[in-house]
């Protein structure tokens, strides 16, 4: 076993573990602090030194956060509603992106049509035009269509995705031609082939993309900031910001922390639940 890459030196092992634990601490400590803060009352956590052990106000804090009506100087809108808005937005963006990218990649890989390359490059070029770059014209369009403060306004401008189209295109190109031909011999038309063969084969890629795009949609900040003006259409990411009043005002830091933790929960859940598929989709080449 001397020839393997694994070295058996206790000192190195200890060092390795130290580095890892340090890394874990750096990532986990702020989360722990947020949790501790959310379990105290607003008065308790502003005292120095800040308590490092959980308090007894946990349920109260989360109830206040979810249902609204806190004492803080900033926004006291109910977080439950914001979570709902965020969830719908993220789901629509993720599913919409996947659906549109699958179809456009399917068209680009499997069909011959005039100006096919032009269309491909047109899609490709949009990679250079993220929302931040085209935010003014996009805002103008959405506003003129009367889509401000609607789910459509929050999601549609973010749905078109060159990245996902490109990813599916690359995947479809690796599907052997013989499979396409076998399906043709079996009498499967294009849409039948798409539904019965391509979709099932793409499921791991779809899962990986879903995770990435769900988090992308959930974490949107700049666009919802412009596209929404009413309290009941704010996603939770904006909600956190609005809870914090500027200046010397007294903020309900426990509620803010609770909201932050709540906002982290769904993306974390998606990652954990889809982890197996996600990894498979990124590394697997099984066809």
């Amino acid at each position, binding site marked *: 076993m001397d020839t393997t890459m694994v070295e058996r030196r206790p000192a190195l092992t200890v060092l390795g573990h130290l580095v890892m634990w340090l890394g874990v601490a750096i990532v986990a400590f702020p989360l722990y602090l947020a949790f501790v803060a959310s379990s105290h009352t607003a008065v308790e956590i502003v005292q120095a030194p800040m308590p490092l052990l959980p308090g007894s106000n946990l349920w109260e804090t989360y109830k206040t956060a979810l249902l609204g009506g806190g004492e803080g100087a900033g926004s006291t809108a109910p977080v439950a509603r914001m979570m709902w808005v965020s969830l719908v937005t993220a789901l629509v963006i993720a599913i919409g992106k996947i659906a549109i990218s699958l179809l456009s990649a399917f068209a680009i890989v499997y069909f011959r049509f005039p100006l096919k390359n032009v269309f491909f490059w047109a899609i490709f070029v949009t990679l250079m035009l993220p929302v931040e770059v085209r935010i003014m014209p996009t805002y103008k369009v959405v506003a003129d269509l009367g889509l401000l403060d609607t789910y459509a306004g929050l999601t549609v401008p973010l749905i078109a995705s060159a990245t996902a189209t490109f990813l599916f295109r690359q995947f479809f190109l690796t599907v052997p031609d013989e499979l396409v*031909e076998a*399906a043709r*011999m079996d009498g499967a038309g294009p849409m*039948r082939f798409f539904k019965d*063969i391509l979709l*099932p084969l793409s499921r791991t890629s779809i899962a990986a993309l879903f995770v990435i795009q769900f988090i992308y949609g959930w974490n949107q900040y700049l666009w919802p900031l412009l596209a929404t003006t009413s309290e009941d259409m704010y996603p939770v990411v904006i909600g956190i910001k609005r809870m914090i009043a500027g200046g010397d005002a007294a903020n309900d830091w426990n509620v803010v922390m609770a909201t932050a933790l709540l906002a982290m929960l769904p993306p974390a859940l998606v990652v954990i639940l889809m982890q197996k598929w996600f990894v498979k989709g990124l590394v697997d080449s099984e*066809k």
Partner: protein
Amino acid sequence: MGAISLRKVEKTYGQGAKAVKVIHGVDAEIADGEFIVIVGPSGCGKSTLLRMVAGLEEITGGEIAIGERVVNALEPAARDIAMVFQNYALYPHMSVFDNMAYGLKIAKVSKAEIEQRVQKAAQILELGGLLERRPRELSGGQRQRVAMGRAIVRQPQVFLFDEPLSNLDAKLRAQTRLEIRKLHQELGVTSLFVTHDQVEAMTLAQRMIVMNGGRIEQIGSPEEVYQAPATTFVARFIRSPPMNLLLGQAEGARFTLGGQALPLPRAAPRNGPLLLGVRPEHAQMQCDGAGQAPLWPMQVEMVEMLGAERLVYGRLGGAAFTLRIEGTLTPPRPGEALMLQVQGQRLHWFDAQSGQRVR
């Protein structure tokens, strides 16, 4: 029923000045129930021809008829054919059963009928216990049988095979070859089988089509192709090691090459420059020099042992010559001179320019 007619079939890729013609007007008539092997070196157009019959490639010229129907404009699924692909092309996410049933489901065959047809095919191919498995859980040979099963359940007029054995190891290949023959005897369905392997072609074919450079060189039974190759290409392509071809001047019962006159056991069909073909297994060594004249002198350069036989490489009248001898015979030594004897009916004559057989 399942007869196939190829009439002046042509295939051109590209258009205008960039057009490349890969099939140059192929004519062939294949009878119902025949097992035909299309054989040729890579790039000879054999797969393209098969794919044109399958409907996977457009036909640029001429027409193809299956049964009485010209199929040029028909989709593959409407041609009443089934194809076995080189890499099997099984749907990886479907069970063996679903792989075989997929085409029938699309054709809206009733559930009971699908079940019955798949079970029957599975029984013929001994896939009974594997119906619930996925393709990746099968061995190469089993996948190959599933691919054949998928073709069988459709009960087509014609089976098309595109080098289906090339991904199997030698032992499995020989075994599958037998199975395919047995299957053909049982079902009696017209079969077109493409391969680059001449052994596969010889053993499977009732008739074989030898192709080269987008043209048919010869159509005939394996015996005909072996005993009377129509061109020098066929002569050298079928059987390994290939036929020896000697370029020289024929004059009556004498053949002159490299300044050396060889006596012929039987007069050449005509005088003038000709190619003389002799298969390595058809020349005999005359060690004691006492055999029947005429004898040809051969200079030995190298000997290879293949077990049952030996290959002797050397020169005859300045040209390379290969001889095949029994492994039990005492082999000649490099540098030694041999006397060879060939019987008159074992000589093949070809035109020196066109390479066509001269009778």
